[in-house]
């Protein structure tokens, strides 16, 4: 898909820094996101030390060795990257982005590079290069679309991931993410939005009442039920902003009668570690696993959230027991399965708008969840249509890689990151866009607002909630419902 590059004015808006000059001076770093104050002396040496330690305790060396022997710099990936397509700045070509880190690796960690460095006396890592990386790696939305276009099969997303990890070890990571993670791992409420358990209970009770009034069915959010089939982890922000999605999920479980629960010791699926630090990633994944085991749950169930699902799916086996690890299921997989088994009835007359589906990168890029939601949606949405490209080749919403949680870069996300997606939505004439991911939903709503597109962004289970039909046995008679409500 071709798009026009941003105008100079848009460029100014997207890349403006909200930071005060004295902060930039003090931090010796001019990036769009806020960074916590850090020790800035001797940064290149610290970067290399962190790099070395990470290489020692990871598999990245193998990846980097492979990459430095391979990169052919053909620039084919440039067509895939929505950031480059929007800025037209060659420094945003995925291969160049990876090249920044590969050059450091070559120069400082390979024999040839070190010798060459000795001879020419150049190439040493400098503050400027760190600045460039700090900019570039956070321009990327980690959508991994470029992976598909590399003829040599190189995974630029993985290199960005590593680059951010090393940077975070020397204190360069968006403050928004660091603060949330701290609340999650060390804070009293153990979640990124700092929601206390009583507040959670209140919210859920409120939703239960709402659902009862609307559906005349007692739909519950079971808390701390021991031995459930599924222990549920939503992106915790859903409890604040995505009531409809949660209601849809609860409704599906009520209709099927399967046992599920939310643990009050730990209920946050968000894992910002995927975006900036493997160490955070590991800690959060273990928390999810611990809570499921505490409740003797059989499976880990992740809500509508791309990165939360991918982290659990991919890293519970890696960090928590390999083949013995608890199975991880995404809620869409579950809903699709019960629908297929005929345990979920959806009314085909409810949703009449032009509906399309946005693939969250973390679901679709590796062909994990692509067809399941489509099959269900097509069954009850009369006016369902496909946008192109979609599925494995989908275009990122522009808020991937954690950037959506960094509020100060919203202008960047909605003019650069999401430009291609906005164009796609505009051209398709979509009225209701289903985006089953907390990150995508937030970003897409901001995107359509800032770009002036008339399109409603909803979650997958929002529509399910609207269309779901319950067995008569579950329904409480209307007059009884009236009494109960009183």
């Amino acid at each position: 898909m071709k798009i026009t590059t941003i105008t100079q004015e848009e460029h100014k808006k997207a890349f403006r820094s909200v930071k005060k000059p004295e902060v930039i001076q003090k931090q010796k770093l001019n990036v769009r996101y806020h960074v916590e104050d850090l020790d800035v002396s001797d940064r290149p040496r610290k970067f290399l030390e962190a790099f070395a330690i990470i290489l020692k305790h990871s598999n990245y060396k193998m990846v980097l060795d492979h990459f430095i022997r391979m990169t052919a710099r053909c620039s084919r990936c440039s067509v895939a990257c929505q950031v480059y397509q929007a800025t037209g700045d060659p420094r945003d070509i995925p291969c160049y982005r990876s090249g920044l880190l590969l050059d450091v690796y070559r120069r400082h960690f390979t024999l040839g590079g070190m010798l060459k460095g000795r001879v020419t006396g150049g190439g040493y890592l400098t503050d400027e290069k760190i600045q460039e990386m700090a900019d570039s790696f956070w321009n990327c939305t980690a959508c991994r679309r470029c992976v598909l276009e590399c003829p040599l099969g190189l995974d630029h997303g993985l290199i960005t991931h590593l680059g951010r990890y090393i940077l975070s070890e020397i204190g360069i990571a968006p403050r928004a993410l660091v603060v949330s993670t701290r609340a999650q791992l060390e804070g009293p409420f153990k979640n990124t939005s700092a929601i206390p358990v009583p507040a959670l209970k209140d919210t859920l009770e409120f939703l239960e009442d709402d659902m009862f009034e609307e559906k005349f069915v007692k739909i519950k959010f079971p808390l701390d039920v021991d031995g459930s089939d599924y222990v549920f982890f939503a992106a915790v922000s859903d409890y604040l902003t995505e009531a409809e999605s949660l209601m849809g999920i609860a409704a599906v479980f009520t209709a099927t009668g399967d046992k599920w629960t939310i643990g009050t010791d730990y209920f946050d699926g968000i894992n910002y570690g995927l975006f900036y630090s493997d160490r955070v990633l590991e800690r959060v994944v273990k928390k999810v696993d611990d809570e499921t085991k505490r409740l003797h749950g059989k499976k880990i169930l992740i809500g509508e959230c791309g990165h939360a699902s991918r982290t659990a799916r991919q890293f519970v086996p890696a960090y928590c027991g390999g083949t013995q690890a608890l199975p991880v299921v995404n809620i869409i997989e579950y809903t699709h399965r019960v629908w297929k088994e005929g345990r979920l009835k959806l009314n085909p007359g409810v949703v009449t708008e032009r509906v399309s589906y946005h693939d969250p990168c973390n679901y679709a890029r590796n062909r994990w969840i692509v067809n399941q939601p489509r099959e269900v949606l097509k069954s009850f949405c009369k006016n369902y249509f496909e946008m192109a490209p979609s599925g494995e080749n989908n275009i990122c919403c522009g808020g991937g890689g954690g950037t959506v949680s960094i509020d100060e870069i919203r202008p960047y996300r909605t003019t650069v990151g999401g430009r291609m997606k906005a164009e796609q939505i505009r051209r398709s004439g979509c009225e209701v866009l289903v985006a089953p991911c907390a990150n995508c939903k937030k970003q897409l709503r901001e995107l359509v607002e800032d770009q002036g597109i008339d399109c409603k962004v909803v979650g997958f289970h929002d529509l399910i909630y609207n269309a779901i039909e319950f067995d008569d046995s579950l329904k409480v008679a209307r007059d009884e419902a009236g009494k109960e409500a009183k």
Partner: protein
Amino acid sequence: MTTSSLLEFARGPLFRLSFAILILGLGRIIFLEIWGIIKAYGNTCDMKMPWQLIRSRSLEWILPVKRMMRNRDVYSVVSFLFHFGLLIVPIFLFAHINLWQQSVGITWPALPYLWAFWLALSTIVFGATMLIGRMAVKQMRFLSKPQDYFWLILLLTPFVTGFICANLSINAAFYQFIMVVHVLAGDLIFILIPFSKIAHCVLAPFSQVVGAIGWKFPSGADEAITRTLDSPKG
């Protein structure tokens, strides 16, 4: 040294040496690659590999029919045909097979003359197109390092010289000179391949596996790193 003795040297001992370097060098990086993969795989607890995805993505690029036309179509087709000629012509050229037969006694079917002619010519044309593309297209020029231009020129040298010798009537002295350039360039290519980006000729098939295992992070890294950071430096 006369031109003819230089030619003898270049396609005798020097060729044998460079061929040995090529084979050993490629053997070395393949070994390192596989060793790296095995070690990394051993580090992780998650032993499940997405073989289906790896297989289909690898095949997509080895036979890039599906991928090729979707984006950058001209570049993709040119690049594909260039690679095709680059591999096929030197291996299946009658004159080359003849040399192998004379020296080691092995032989295999050769390309018919016309095929060889057109393939060689197209490789030269497509190679030149890639070179021009690299210089002319903004994003390619930006990414390119000197060695990217160097390699295209170096790879085209034996093609151009070989083409001249095989198809144009030139006088004997000039022929010998061109031939020397032809063989020397070939030798140089063999020597440099294992140490350059052209190593992708043997490493590319590993990419998907490397990517898949690269995303499998070893358990306990967090603790190990914390320990390393806490321990006094020594």
